[in-house]
């Protein structure tokens, strides 16, 4: 009995590793094959098997071609610009709302909080048809401001993360500062903002990744070539590069690299961010 127990537990262990390794393979192989393709020359790609290693891992021709001919530099410029401005805006606005709502009592507080809550229930995909008319009427169509304003304004989850965090900061800190004559504005900038940094990191990661990966908003609101973000410059590879898969592969890898670097360096924060954001 003891022996058979050990045998069955060994079988379970093998099974456990087999399942997890299979999962890991399914998660990585599609990306790795694209990575291999990105180093192949055109004839090499056409003749060989997709799983074959490239002749050389220092053949960066496809990368240069993707980056220059595919105008990915424009994409990275626009994405960086939009990302920086909208993240800064979202953090300032989000912390301001959270500070006021958490620290003060006023008449319409419940109504305002309720309004933000109801807004989370409206999936933005569904209202885009009407949002488009508003962006158009404001003269923001085909400007970076369209994306910036939409990323800044629609985020309510960030406000909740901030409220949760600020409510954990003791009010006695505010009171001590008031004893020394600090204004509420000073309390917000000198006490709340510095202490809320971990929540800011969380929001920056969740929102930053969402903005970097977004396709829908730039696709809809900024079709102009000079305004293309990373997602769109990658999307544009489909037409002109048709079946030049080795170049498209390089473009895919270029798009993935920033995400991979971020993930490797900020793993812990990323895990925490997504588990915290999901249990709102």
């Amino acid at each position: 009995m003891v022996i058979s127990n050990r045998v069955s537990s060994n079988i379970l262990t093998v099974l456990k590793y087999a399942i997890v390794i299979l999962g890991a393979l399914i998660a990585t192989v599609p990306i790795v094959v694209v990575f291999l393709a990105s180093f192949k020359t055109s004839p090499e790609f056409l003749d060989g098997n997709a799983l074959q290693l490239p002749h050389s891992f220092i053949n960066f021709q496809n990368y240069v071609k993707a980056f220059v001919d595919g105008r990915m530099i424009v994409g990275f410029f626009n994405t960086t610009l939009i990302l920086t401005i909208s993240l800064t805006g979202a953090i300032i606005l989000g912390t301001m709302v959270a500070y006021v709502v958490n620290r003060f009592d006023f008449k319409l507080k419940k109504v305002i909080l309720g309004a933000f809550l109801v807004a989370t229930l409206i999936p933005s995909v569904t209202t885009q048809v009407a949002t488009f008319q508003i962006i158009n009427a404001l003269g923001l169509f085909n400007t970076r401001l369209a994306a910036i304003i939409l990323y800044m304004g629609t985020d309510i989850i960030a406000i909740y993360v901030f409220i949760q965090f600020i409510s954990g900061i003791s009010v006695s800190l505010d009171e001590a500062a008031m004893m020394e004559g600090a204004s509420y504005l000073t309390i917000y900038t000198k006490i709340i903002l510095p202490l809320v940094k971990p929540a800011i990191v969380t929001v920056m990661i969740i929102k930053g990744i969402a903005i970097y990966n977004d396709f829908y908003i730039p696709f809809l609101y900024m079709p102009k070539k000079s305004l293309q973000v990373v997602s769109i410059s990658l999307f544009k590879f489909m037409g002109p590069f048709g079946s030049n898969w080795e170049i498209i592969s390089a473009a895919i890898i270029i798009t993935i690299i920033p995400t991979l670097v971020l993930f490797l360096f900020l793993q812990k924060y990323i895990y925490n961010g997504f588990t915290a954001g999901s249990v709102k």
Partner: protein
Amino acid sequence: MKDLNYASQRRILIVTFLFVPIVLLCVFSFLPLGNMVYYSTLKWNGYSKNRLFVGFSNYIRLFSDPEYFSVFKVSLYYLAGSVLQLSLALLFATLLTFEMRAKNFFKGVLFFPYLLNGVAIAFIFLFFYKGDGTLDSILKAIGLGDLIQFWLRDVKIVNFSMVFTSIWRYIGFNFIVFLGAMQSIDKEIFEAADIDGANKWHKFIYIIMPSIKKIVELNLILAVTGAIQAFEIPYVMMHGANGTKTFVIQTVDTAFVNGKLGLASAMSVVLLIIIIIATIFQKQYFKHREGV
């Protein structure tokens, strides 16, 4: 500011701090919502001066013209896929909760796809499914070359290919949330169970499942509403061709390609109502459960 007393400071701060966020909220969340409901009663292309009031006829058209309501069939693939996705996420999270070598490596690898750019994922899987692409090469390499299909061209298969891609993309999120919930279970409970001679299956059924039930249910609702909103993968990979059109693709095409803004708004309203019903159902369900 320092010279004002705290009461007036407070009033000024409340107004100034809330002004911009509330304007943004009204202009970009509630105004579009109201407009959308209004547009849904119009025959309008979105820019001409001609706005013809047509009452409910957009809604009637939506439910009587198979071109519009048949896209819901495609949602069923994604719905079934999300059940599979949650089950697999639960399986991986459970396996990684128990002792294991290279745990962090596997955790990272299983989660990473969720962080990737949607267009990049769509392209990776165009490469994966194309003739002599990744999938065909793997099947050949392991001697299953006979199973090779037209993964994207065969109308009977293409939606399964889309759903597999979708699962690949989103499973990491469910997995990491489940794992987080499982790891927050008190270790002493497991130790007590060990003393009582519980095996892994007992632990899963009697300890893990009850303590993460709520999060599983929440993820189920998220997965259901997500399935109805499927857009990016079938749009970027197939442009909605070959029977892969989802409800959102149909809406975007109706509004921006065919210039039928009224009809598209009606579709959006219907989608919104479905999502609201699902959300209310979830909230009620949880309330009821908590009461027990």
